[in-house]
């Protein structure tokens, strides 16, 4: 088993209204920034022991399915890499 960090990114499905992102966009414009659109997403970093990256991804995907995302309104992406990479 190897230490991996799985990353789950959860975002609203295309077309689902995101009032928080819209409010954030308006605030940025009030500060003088110019932008066309803004989307927000939640990112979860999960440290876990896994046989390989595919195993780590599969388990993180299951976590996304069962809790981290709500499939009614969310899409999600999962990736995994050995933990402490580059250290």
């Amino acid at each position: 088993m190897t230490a991996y960090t799985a990353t789950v990114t959860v975002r609203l499905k295309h077309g689902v209204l995101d009032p928080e992102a819209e409010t954030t966009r308006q605030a940025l414009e009030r500060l003088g920034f110019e932008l066309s659109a803004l989307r927000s997403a939640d990112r979860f970093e999960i440290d876990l022991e896994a046989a390989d990256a595919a195993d780590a991804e599969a388990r993180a995907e299951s976590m996304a399915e069962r809790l981290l995302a709500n499939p009614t309104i969310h899409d999600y992406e999962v990736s995994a890499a050995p933990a402490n990479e580059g250290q």
Partner: protein
Amino acid sequence: MTVAVIQFGGSNCDRDAVRALRFLDIAAERIWHEDGLPADTSGIMLPGGFSYGDYLRAGAMAARSPIMGEVRDAAADGVPVLGVCNGAQVGCEAGLTDGAFTTNKRARFQCESVFLRVERSDTPWTGAFAVGDVIEVPIAHGEGRFEIDADRYEQLEANDRVLFRYCDADGTLTDAANPNGSTGNVAGILGERDSVAVLMPHPERATLPDVGGTDGQPILQAFGEQATR
């Protein structure tokens, strides 16, 4: 025979719910979620509040607590289950009902009185009403916008699962009367069985005559009628 009002950490309408039910002469107890359902549970109410501080998504944590397995089993056995406000969010997150309740269109917490149009009169919750009746009940939520994809919404309508819709005082469905931008002005829906319902408005806050209207009484009365059936 008692209605179990399930209290999670952060629930805050549990006492109101018990008081409203008892006012209607329906036996009701607050049940701490870790204690499990009492053996004589004749009905289940998931009350409003901010269970688990709305962490992750409103209702997400409570929906995955062990007692919800018992609630699902009881619902499948025909025990009436009513989710109100945070309880509605918990119900959707737990899969008792379809769809999701998420951030209000205007990204504000809205605490006001609204009008609801009764869409079904042949359910335990709405037997005292006629289809098209307009009732006045308060809302208090920041995440009450009913969201569901187009195909599933079509299914929901085809299966007659919509129980209440936001409307104006005359019963007309308008955008202005839709306080949170809900799909189809949906305020409350039924689960697979008619004995399971969730709604964002608070019938328990429209039950005691001293604190406002009493339009919510017939909804809660269902617990009494079902228990004696």
